[in-house]
């Protein structure tokens, strides 16, 4: 019985955080946004060197073979550092899709390339959670038609596509008939976009139980996003506390005002139990199949609510400075805002959990 992080896990987080610090952190994200970079290749390379791109890929495919909990811990660090690099799609969901529904050939071809960071994979999953504006992809005569919106890790070489019937497909980014349109959002650290399919050749991923594989993608995606929010919210809280200790008004640090202290205390009280929830949800993905989906929903929904509140409160603690671009706090604010809506807003996700529990139709 040991509910906590191992030394290896703590080291993984620390070494990744150290690398991200060296690579420039917020300054790197600002440059990524200002230069409209498609990929921060230096960051991806550094992550590959640390084994992060191949984190959950088995060792015999060039990966590190770690667990989804480890992936969540990575996601947390990336959120904390508003890192402008692919991870959830390319290093978690795409490998999961290949491992869960790909055949040996597909696995042997793609997993090593994903592990090394040589290939980035995007994942088109939004319509499986809820289709907006009539989006969705259909297969006719073995070819894909339709649209996928809000592709995770959009600036990719390869895509995992979920069609309307829940089947999974692999599509190369340069496939004829595929049109890619970036969708600019509030979050400038994680490009997303639309894929349009006009008779695109696709390779089916259908070697396992596709329904199980799809559910695993949704669950893992939600836990990774929850972890990203955990990291981002913790970073906002930390910045608020630091700022409050430094900032003086009325001849005293604002951290000595009970109102400011209590705002910080409320953030901490809301957030700290979320850490254990994310750990548990990450652990459940690999080890507690009966609980995994519901816990993933709870983690996603709850972190969205808590994160939204903290994003607002931490900004308020910063006063006007939090509203400006000067301290860049809004990068975290927007990261949390992005995470809230992706793969199902909190209400949608709670309703999903209620269905899983048999409480809703």
């Amino acid at each position: 019985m040991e509910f906590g992080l191992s030394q290896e896990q703590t080291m993984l987080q620390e070494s990744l955080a150290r690398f991200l610090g060296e690579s420039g952190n917020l300054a790197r994200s600002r440059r990524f946004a200002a230069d409209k970079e498609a990929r921060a290749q230096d960051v991806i390379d550094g992550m590959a060197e640390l084994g992060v791109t191949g984190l959950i890929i088995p060792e015999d495919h060039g990966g590190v073979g770690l667990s989804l909990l480890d992936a969540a811990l990575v996601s947390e660090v990336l959120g904390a550092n508003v890192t402008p690099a692919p991870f959830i799609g390319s290093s978690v969901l795409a490998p999961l899709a290949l491992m869960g529904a790909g055949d040996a050939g597909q696995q042997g071809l793609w997993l090593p390339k994903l592990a090394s960071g040589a290939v980035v994979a995007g994942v088109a999953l939004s319509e499986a959670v809820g289709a907006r504006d009539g989006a969705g992809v259909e297969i006719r005569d073995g070819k894909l038609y339709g649209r996928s919106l809000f592709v995770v890790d959009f600036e990719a070489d390869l895509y995992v596509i979920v069609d309307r019937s829940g089947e999974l497909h692999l599509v190369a980014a340069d496939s004829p008939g595929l049109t890619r349109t970036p969708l600019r959002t509030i979050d400038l650290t994680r490009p997303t976009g639309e894929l349009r399919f006009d008779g695109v050749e696709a390779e089916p991923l259908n070697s396992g139980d596709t329904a199980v594989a799809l559910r695993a993608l949704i669950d893992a995606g939600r836990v990774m996003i929850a972890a990203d929010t955990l990291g981002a919210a913790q970073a906002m809280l930390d910045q608020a506390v630091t700022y409050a200790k430094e900032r003086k008004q009325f001849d005293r640090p604002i951290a000595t005002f009970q109102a400011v202290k209590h705002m910080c205390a409320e953030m901490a009280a809301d957030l700290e139990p979320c850490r254990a929830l994310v750990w548990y949800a990450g652990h459940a993905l690999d080890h507690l199949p009966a609980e995994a989906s519901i816990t993933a929903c709870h983690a996603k929904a709850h972190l969205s609510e808590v994160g939204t509140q903290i994003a607002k409160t931490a900004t308020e603690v910063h006063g006007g400075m939090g509203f400006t671009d000067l301290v860049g706090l809004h990068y975290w604010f927007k990261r949390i805002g992005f995470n809230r809506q992706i793969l199902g807003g909190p209400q949608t996700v709670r309703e999903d959990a209620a269905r899983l529990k048999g409480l809703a139709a």
Partner: protein
Amino acid sequence: MDLSFSAEHESFRCEVLSFLESHRDQAPRPGGPSALMWQKLLIANGYAARSIPTEYGGYGASPDILKSRIIAEEFARAQVSPGLGGQGISMLVPTLLEVGSEEQKRSIIGPTLRGEMVWCQGYSEPGAGSDLANLRTKGELVGDHWVVNGQKIWTSTAHLADWCFCLVRTEPDAPKHQGISFLLFSMKTPGIEIRPLIDMTEGHSFNEVFFTDVQVPAGQIVGKRGDGWKVANAILRHERGSLADPNTMLSRLGALTEMMKTETVDGRRAIDDPLFRDRFMRIEAKVMAMRCNDLRLLSAAVNGHSPGLAGLVVKLQGTELRHELERLAIDVMGEMGLLYGDGTPYLRDRGSWQWNYMFFLGLIIGGGTSQIQKNIISERGLGMPREPKLATA
């Protein structure tokens, strides 16, 4: 309780409507009539600068809050520009009328009202936000000029303004609140540097302004040396209420209803989702309460009563409520609510929901943070004691 208007006011409303009917083609638009021409027309007809004396360039009517409200309502309903706004007209002009010299009133108010003199406000500083009286920009009287050095922040429209009304510490040895003067100077004076202050909306609504040996003629002061705090406070009170207009909220609610009827997930309209609907109704009730509160304030103003608590709570409640309303819209749109920036495909309402969501977080903070507002409500509204003095202060 009587929500009807008097015959005089009803007939005034008809006048306004007929003016709108016959002049709306002269309202400013891109490539059409200019805002300055329109402003002149409005002043001439008493729909702008209505109660400002004619000798200072106004229309010279006696003040009538209800008529002002009728004008505001009908121009808003007709979606016709109500004329120029800005801090010069809304804040400096009332101040000058109260405490300006005759010379200042004659030379400044008219051009300001006509939009020939655009003003920015130099109050906040990096070290003086909630604690505005802590400001450090200093002005030294050297010969017949103030020499101003220091930095301002949150200076909206500094990049567009001709002139600045500015709080400057001129009496460094006086107590904090008594060492400040209220100076006026041209933004073309040498030594002024303006840096855009980009905010979380990616927009440029504010600036940082740096003063290096800026020379201001000694006479360009409003009130006496050291009176600046009093002068400024008279206007700050004007500002706070205006951030949370319930009529704007009602129109946002209307837009949200329409949006909820068209946004769909898996083909199901947002308005048919009981959870979104409930959140909407909950917000509508709060907006209704603020609108009723606003009627109460209007009525108190008409009758010269003190609005009391009903007035003190407007800024806090209104900005929070507006933020909550825009938040709901984003949740309704889901991923679509993340889209931002001109020309982005699928973008709804030009991104206004996201913009307002963020901008109103700024307004929750700006013009007195929620924490400062709560201090004010508890002390002035509920008569609770101020925090005791500290041992070392």
